[in-house]
């Protein structure tokens, strides 16, 4: 398998103005600005121009994509996904770095780019096709296919401004789906249309993949990504956060976006007498396969000198199944109150958990009475490459990653154990 896309040290810098957000610059704005700058320079040659700030939409991005890979790119709004796609599709120029691309690339950053409201469906197919890089011959050849996929035979000669939004989207996607390129870049186009059409689009994209096409797919739709892609890249604040299996990427993305997590302040699972208050919980997976859970608890004055309080953690799978419970008294741990606060941290060595995402609940207990408890307010993800699974767990495989081995036994030797 050869490398189709190779990205090295890619960065993109934007200069953002703090003074005010301008849609565009006019000379009237620039002249007073320049004069002010000159004045400033005359007064103080080392004066910083604080009105502008450099902002890196992408920094030091590096990856290689092999032919036929389907890569899902996920991240929060502003993580740099769209900037990356824009650079890859040559719409904008990188500030530094290098990209090598082998093959014909076509990008779909928007459904119906260049569609003209006044033109008919037929005319728009030709126009949009040409804009996306199809030749007139290609379009003529695929015209019938495009029309039947979009299911708009009846309205071919109606201006698209009279189309329903669904018809419009179907037509637009249909043109793009029939592009003849080696690399397809898609930005969030499946967010449109009804479920039925979305499934049709996914089906079409799967069949495109069968033909060995490389696909880059930016999305917020985790289901679409896990069903379509075989590799995931997570971008966070313009940097590569994760690059690996698509399920791990999904879990990590959900972790950093704190998805399906309750906040501590407004925890719906809150309970207890209220003499203590859990104020913070964080879980971090260390490089050496340790999970570190840190907790911060505020304690009321009357309990300040008690040392027999217990901290309990519950670890649940994403579906809510309790996987493990950890109670501090089981390991003879006595939380210490300093300045009305408990700061404790719990280490789990080699968690025997299958790959996936886990949610943490916590409570503080004193003499059998729960002082405070919070539900699902922290999360961690076990990555597939740190377990014996190496692949994504299927839903009915359970949650334990047991340390096991298999051996062949000798069938003839009854009663004797196998030495090996």
């Amino acid at each position: 398998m050869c490398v189709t896309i190779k990205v090295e040290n890619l960065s993109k810098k934007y200069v953002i103005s703090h003074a005010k957000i301008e849609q565009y610059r006019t000379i009237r704005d620039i002249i007073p600005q320049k004069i002010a700058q000159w004045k400033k320079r005359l007064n103080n040659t080392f004066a910083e121009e604080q009105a502008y700030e450099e902002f890196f939409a992408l920094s030091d991005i590096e990856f290689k994509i092999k032919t036929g890979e389907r890569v899902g790119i996920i991240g929060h709004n502003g993580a740099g996904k769209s900037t990356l796609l824009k650079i890859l599709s040559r719409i904008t120029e990188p500030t530094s770095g290098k990209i090598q691309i082998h093959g014909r690339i076509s990008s779909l950053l928007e459904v119906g780019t260049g569609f003209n409201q006044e033109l008919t469906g037929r005319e728009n197919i030709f126009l949009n096709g040409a804009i996306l890089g199809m030749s007139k011959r290609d379009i003529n050849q695929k015209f019938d296919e495009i029309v039947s996929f979009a299911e708009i035979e009846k309205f071919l000669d109606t201006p698209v401004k009279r189309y329903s939004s669904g018809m419009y989207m179907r037509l637009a996607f249909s043109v793009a789906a029939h592009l003849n390129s080696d690399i397809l870049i898609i930005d969030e186009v499946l967010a449109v249309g009804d479920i039925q059409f979305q499934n049709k689009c996914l089906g079409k994209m799967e069949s495109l993949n069968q033909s060995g096409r490389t696909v880059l797919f930016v999305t917020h739709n985790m289901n679409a990504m896990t069903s379509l892609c075989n590799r995931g890249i997570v971008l966070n604040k313009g940097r590569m956060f994760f690059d690996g299996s698509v399920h791990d990427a999904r879990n990590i993305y959900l972790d950093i976006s704190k998805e399906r997590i309750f906040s501590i302040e407004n925890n719906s699972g809150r309970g207890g007498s209220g003499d203590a208050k859990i104020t913070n919980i964080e879980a971090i997976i260390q490089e050496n396969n340790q999970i570190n859970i840190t907790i911060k608890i505020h304690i009321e004055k009357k309990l300040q000198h008690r040392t027999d309080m217990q901290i309990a953690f519950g670890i649940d799978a994403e579906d809510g199944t309790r996987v493990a419970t950890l109670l501090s008294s089981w390991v003879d741990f006595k939380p210490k109150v300093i300045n009305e606060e408990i700061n404790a941290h719990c280490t789990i060595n080699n968690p025997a958990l299958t790959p996936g995402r886990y949610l943490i609940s916590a409570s503080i207990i004193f003499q059998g009475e729960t002082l405070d408890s919070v539900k699902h307010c922290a999360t961690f993800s076990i990555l597939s490459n740190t377990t014996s699974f190496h692949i994504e767990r299927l839903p009915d495989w359970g949650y334990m990653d047991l340390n096991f081995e298999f051996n062949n036994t000798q069938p003839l030797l009854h009663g004797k154990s196998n030495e090996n």
Partner: protein
Amino acid sequence: MTKPYLVIEAGKTEQRYWQDIWNYRELLYFLAWRDILVRYKQTVIGIAWAVIRPVLTMIVFSIIFGKIANLPSGEAPYPIMVFAALLPWTFFATALNDAGNSLITNSNLISKVYFPRLLIPVSAIGVCLVDLLLSLIILCLLMFAYQHSPPWQVIFLPFFIFLAISVSLGLSIFLAALNVTYRDFRHIIPFIIQLGLFLSPVGFTSSIIPEQWKYLYALNPMVGVIDGFRWAILGGDHKIDPINISISIGITAILLIFGIKYFRMTEKKFADVI
């Protein structure tokens, strides 16, 4: 089939830019085709509008300058004299306006798809060229009506059409690129057109310009173009001055070179600032 190989690097201009333009030539055609289609959608008389505008202007000019102001027209009838100049001028004015604003009106394309951006203003000029060719047919009819046969120089008309295209292209791509960053040019372009109409020999002949100002006047490249059109279409006492034409060609070349240079220089930032 070998797969294309592409390198994207900061600050590096595309080496195969001109080849790319050639590869996208069909898009050029489709963009122009779209503009022509859209312009006359939902109109009753359709493409006739392309003809009505210059004809009406010609009538107004003939009355005001020919009859009221009594400016001389030489041997040729005044309407033909005016129309011969209105052709290149209308072409220049619409080209400047349409192509100069073309990047802004197509900003949705620029921020979403890659193709050589030069295609956008060029296709806008292509649309104006279609109008020019239509108007030429009207001119033929007009000349037939006035029984004015063209002189032998008419074979040079294609050259002056080419010169008109070059002037319009050079200036409009320059303005279009500036317009992306500085929207002031959206207001400057109509001003250039309005003023240019009086600074160019449209309603009068350039022979009324005093001898000592002649070459200064020729710095307006449209002077050479319009004189050339008149000479090629009317002949007779409409002469062309080789030095005037050379100045026009020179200015055009400068505009074209700087226009393309500036356009290419700023092109990669279009998507960021538009």
